[in-house]
C-alpha cells in the first residue's frame, strides 16, 4: 500500500514538474519510467529500463549506458535520478542538465543483478545500433544477437542498410538472423536462410543459438538446424585440437619458466635446490612491491610496472641466491643429502619470513591492460597474458643460451662444470663462478616469479606448487642440458593438455607422473643425456 501511495505522489509530483518545466509532451512516459529507478527493487528497475528504452527520448541511451556501468544514482526521498559523469559531476537524468544545488543525502547507485544486466545489455544494443563509434555498433549487434529481441528488427534492417564497416555489417546480419530464427511469425524459408547465416558464423555461440531452438519449430527448420549444428561441431573438433595444442604450449611455457632456473642450479651445478620455488616467490613479491610503489607514486606508469619489476626481481632473487650459495651451499658441495635438507629448511624459513613480512593472505598483483583479455583466431581463443608469457619464456631461454655460448662468464661457467680442477689451474676463480652461477639460476627463477604473478596467487605458498614440476621437467629433459629442459617442458605441457579432457585434471596429472617414471626406467638420463667425460666427472 505504501509503495502504491508513494508512486501516486511521485507521479503527481512529476506531473507538476512537467507542467513547471514545460517539457515536451513526449518526455512524459520517459519521466515516469525514470521514477521506477527510485524504488530500489530489481523488478521496478526492469520496468524502468524497458520504459526508458521505448520512450524514444534522446537521453535514453545515455541513461541505460550509465545504468550498465553503475553510474546511475537515485534519491528515494526526492524521487530523482542522476547520471554521474567524470569528476563526480551529477547530471539530472530527467533533463540532461547538470544538477543544481547540493546532492541529496540518500543518493545511492541503482543496483543490478545478472537478469537485469542481460535486459540492460539488450536494451542498450537496440538503442546503439546506429551509434557513431563502430566499436559501439559491433557491441550492440552482438548484444542483439544474444537477446534475439524481436522489437529490434526494424532498427536492424535500417542499420544494415546504412552500415559501411564490413565487420559490423556481418555482425548485424548475424544478429538479424538470430532475431528472425526466434520470431514466431517468420516463414520457414526465412528461418532456413537465417540458419545458413548462423552456420557461416560457426562458433560456440552459433551452436548455442541453434541448439536452443524451441520444440515448436517446423520439421524442416529443425532439420536444417540439426544439420548446421553437426557441421559446425565437425569443424569445431579440429579447432579444439588446435586449442589443446595452444594450451599445451602455454602450460609448457609455464613449466619451462619455472624449471629453467633449476636447469642451471640443479642441471648444470648439480645442487639439489629445494628452495628454488621460493626464489620464484621472491620474484613475484618484488613485482607486488614495485606495483604498490607505482600505484602510490605514479599510477600513470602502471602499464609499465612489469618492465621495472623484471630487472628488480632478477636482482633480488639473484642476490638472495648468491647469499645462499656463499652462506650455505658452498660448504655442502658433493653432499647431496645434506644440501637437500639444508635448502629445504631454507625454503620453509623464506616462506615464513615472507608470511611474517607481508601477511599470510594473497596479494593483488594487477595485470597491465596490454596483458588482459583475449582475441580469437578462427574458433580459438588466445588470452594475451598466456601469449606474452610464451614470448617472455622464449626470450629468457634464448638470452640464457647466449650468455652460456657467447660471454666470458658463460665460458668460465662451462669450464668449471666440466672440469673444475683444470679450470682452476687455468686461473678461473671457481668459487666466484659457483656463486655467480647459482645467482644466475636464482635470478632467472625471480624472472619466472614476475610472469607467474600474472596467472597465479601471490602468496607465500606460490613456490611450493612449482618445485616438483620443475624437478620433473629437468630430470625428464636430461640433467645438464638446456635444450632438454625446453623439449621436456613442452612435451609435458602438451601431453598433459591432451590427457586432461579425457582423464580429468587429477587423473591426467597422475598419468603424466606414471609415464615419467616408466620413461626414467628406460632412459635414466632423460631425453637428452650428456655424453662423454662430463658424465663421469
Amino acid at each position, binding site marked *: 500500500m505504501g509503495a502504491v501511495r508513494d508512486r501516486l505522489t511521485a507521479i503527481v509530483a512529476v506531473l507538476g514538474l512537467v507542467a513547471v518545466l514545460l517539457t515536451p509532451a513526449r518526455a512524459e512516459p520517459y519521466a515516469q519510467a525514470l521514477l521506477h529507478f527510485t524504488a530500489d527493487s*530489481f523488478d521496478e528497475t526492469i520496468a524502468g529500463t524497458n520504459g526508458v528504452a521505448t520512450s524514444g527520448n534522446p537521453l535514453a541511451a545515455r541513461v541505460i549506458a550509465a545504468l550498465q556501468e553503475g553510474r546511475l544514482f537515485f534519491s528515494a526521498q526526492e524521487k530523482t535520478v542522476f547520471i554521474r559523469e567524470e569528476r563526480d559531476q551529477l547530471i539530472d537524468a530527467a533533463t540532461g542538465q547538470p544538477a543544481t544545488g547540493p546532492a541529496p543525502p540518500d543518493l545511492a547507485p541503482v543496483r543490478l*543483478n*545478472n*537478469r537485469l*544486466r542481460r535486459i540492460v*545489455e539488450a536494451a542498450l544494443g537496440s538503442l546503439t545500433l546506429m551509434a557513431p563509434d563502430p566499436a559501439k555498433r559491433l557491441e550492440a549487434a552482438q548484444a542483439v544477437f*544474444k537477446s534475439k529481441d524481436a522489437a529490434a528488427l526494424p532498427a536492424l534492417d535500417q542499420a544494415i542498410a546504412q552500415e559501411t564497416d564490413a565487420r559490423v555489417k556481418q555482425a548485424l546480419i548475424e544478429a538479424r538472423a538470430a532475431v528472425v530464427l526466434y520470431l514466431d511469425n517468420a516463414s520457414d524459408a526465412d528461418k532456413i536462410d537465417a540458419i545458413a547465416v548462423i552456420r557461416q558464423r560457426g562458433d*560456440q*555461440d552459433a*551452436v*548455442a543459438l*541453434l*541448439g*536452443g531452438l524451441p520444440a515448436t519449430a517446423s520439421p524442416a527448420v529443425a532439420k536444417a538446424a540439426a544439420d548446421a549444428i553437426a557441421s559446425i561441431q565437425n569443424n569445431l573438433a579440429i579447432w579444439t585440437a588446435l*586449442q*589443446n595444442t595452444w*594450451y599445451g604450449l*602455454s602450460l609448457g611455457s*609455464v613449466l619451462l619458466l619455472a624449471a629453467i632456473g633449476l636447469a642451471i642450479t640443479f642441471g648444470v651445478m648439480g645442487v*639439489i635446490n629445494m628452495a628454488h620455488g621460493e626464489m620464484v616467490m621472491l620474484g613475484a613479491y618484488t613485482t607486488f612491491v614495485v606495483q604498490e610503489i607505482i600505484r602510490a607514486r605514479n599510477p600513470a606508469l602502471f602499464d609499465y610496472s612489469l618492465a621495472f619489476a623484471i630487472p628488480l626481481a632478477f636482482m633480488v632473487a639473484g642476490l638472495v641466491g648468491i647469499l645462499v650459495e656463499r652462506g650455505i651451499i658452498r660448504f655442502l658441495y658433493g653432499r*647431496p*643429502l645434506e644440501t*637437500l*635438507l639444508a635448502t*629445504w629448511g631454507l625454503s*620453509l624459513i623464506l616462506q*615464513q619470513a615472507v608470511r611474517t613480512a607481508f*601477511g*599470510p*593472505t*594473497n*596479494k*593483488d598483483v*594487477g*595485470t597491465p591492460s596490454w596483458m*588482459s*583479455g*583475449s582475441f580469437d583466431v578462427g574458433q580459438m*581463443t588466445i*588470452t*594475451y*597474458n598466456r601469449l606474452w608469457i610464451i614470448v617472455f619464456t622464449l626470450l629468457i631461454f634464448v638470452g640464457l643460451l647466449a650468455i652460456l655460448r657467447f660471454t666470458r662468464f658463460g665460458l668460465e661457467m662451462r669450464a668449471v662444470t666440466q672440469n673444475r680442477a683444470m679450470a682452476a689451474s687455468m686461473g678461473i676463480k671457481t668459487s666466484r663462478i659457483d656463486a655467480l652461477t647459482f645467482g644466475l639460476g636464482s635470478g632467472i627463477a625471480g624472472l619466472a616469479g614476475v610472469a607467474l604473478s600474472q*596467472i*597465479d*596467487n*601471490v*602468496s*607465500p*605458498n606460490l613456490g*611450493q606448487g612449482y618445485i616438483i614440476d620443475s624437478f620433473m621437467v629437468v*630430470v625428464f629433459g636430461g*640433467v645438464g642440458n638446456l635444450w632438454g629442459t625446453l623439449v621436456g617442458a613442452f612435451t609435458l605441457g602438451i601431453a598433459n*593438455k591432451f590427457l*586432461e*579432457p579425457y582423464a*580429468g*585434471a*587429477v587423473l591426467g596429472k597422475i598419468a603424466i607422473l606414471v609415464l615419467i617414471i616408466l620413461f*626414467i626406467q628406460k632412459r*635414466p638420463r632423460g631425453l637428452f643425456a650428456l655424453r662423454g667425460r662430463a658424465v663421469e666427472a
Partner: protein
Amino acid sequence: MQVFIGAAAERPLARRWLAATAGLALGLIGAFPAKAQDTIKIGILHSLSGTMAISETTLKDVMLMLIEQQNKKGGVLGKKLEAVVVDPASNWPLFAEKARELITKDKVAAVFGCWTSVSRKSVLPVFKELNNILFYPVQYEGEESERNVFYTGAAPNQQAIPAVDYLTSKDGGEAKRWVLAGTDYVYPRTTNKILEAYLKQNGVADPDIMINYTPFGHADWQTIVSDIKKFGSAGKKTAVVSTINGDANVPFYKELGNQGVRATDIPVVAFSVGEEELAGIDTKPLLGHLAAWNYFESIKTPINEQFIKDWHEFIKNPKRVTNDPMEAHFIGFAMWVKAVEKVGSTDPDKVIDALPGVQAPNLTGGTSTMLPNHHITKPVFIGEVRADGQFDVVWKTPGLVPGDAWSKYLPGSKDLIADWVTLKCGNYNTVTKKCGGAS
C-alpha cells in the same frame, strides 16, 4: 636422480618434523603466561603457518579480539579469560597433538578452531576421549554431529541448496544446466553429491550436469574454463557451482576473466570465496559472479558496523576485511559465554547440555539459536561481486534456516537425525528407531 626421487618421498616427514618443532616452540611461549589460578583458558587451534595460514590466521586474531572484549566487560563468572594460542601448522596429525596438549596440559575450558574438514576429523577422537568442547566455524559438508563439537559454520542446506534455488529462480537466471566444479577432497565431493541428488529430484537430466574435480592448488584452468564455455553453449542457461578451495580460486577467476566468461552468460556461484579471497584478485572482470554465505561485510546493520570498527581498531589496519567464518566465531563465542553463565560453571558436560537452545545475535541483524543437533540457525545471503572486492547482497532467505546435520537428499542419510537433547544421539535412524552407534 635416484637421490632426488627417494628424497621427494621423504619430504612430508621432514616438513612435519620441522613444523612440529616450530609449533612446540610457539606452544611453549603460549603456555608460559599461564600462572594465575583465577583465569579461564580458551584454546585457539588455528594454523599460523603452512598452506592454511592464509585463512586461519585471521580467525586466531578475531578470537583474541573477542576474548579481549569479554575481559573488558569483566570476563566470565568473575574470572578473566585467557587465550592459549597453538600453531598446528596446516598439518592434520599435528592438530590432534595440539588439541591434546590444549586439553590436558593447559586445561582449557573450550577450544575454538580448525578450518579443513580433515583437521576436524583428526581432532574428533581427542575431544571425545578427553571430553572437551570444539567450536568449528567453517562451512562444511555436513553428515556429522558429535556431542563434543558445535558447528557454527553453514551445513549444506544453509549454503549450497539455497544458492541453487536462487540460480533456478527468475532473478538468478533460471539456470537449466549445471557445472559442479570443485577441488578434489571431501567437502566438494560430498556437497556435489548432495547437489546432484537435489538437482535430479528437481528434474534436471543427467546430461545437463557436468562434474569436474581438480587437484589442490590447480593453477592451469585453460582447458576447464573452455570446457565450461562449451558446456554452456548448448542453448540452455548454464550456471557453475564452485566448491573450488582457497588458493586455486585466483587463477580460476583470472582465467574466467581473460576468456571473457561473463556473469550474464554463465554465472559462477562460489562457496569458498569470500572477502579475504577476493582481496588477491582484480575483481573488475568478475562483476556479477556470485557467492553464497551467511554473512557479508557489506551488510549494513549497527552490530556489523560496530564489529568492523572494533576489528579495524584491534588489527590496526583499516583495510582488513571481515568474513563469514569470523562471524561464526563471533556467534559461537557469545553462545559459549551465555551457556557458561547459565550453568555457572565451565565444566564441559554442563556446558554441552546447556548450549542447545542458547541464542546469540548474529551480525546481520537476526538472532541465531543453537539447535539440539549442535548446528545453528542462520540466514542465507547471495552476494554479487562488486568492483571494490566486496559483495552486494542480491537475495536472502526470508528467515533463518536451521542447519541439518544429515542431508535429506542423500540415500544414506535421509533417515538420520541428530538430537543431543532428548535422543542423546548424533545419528538416530528414524526408520529403524535406533541410534546408529556413534559415540
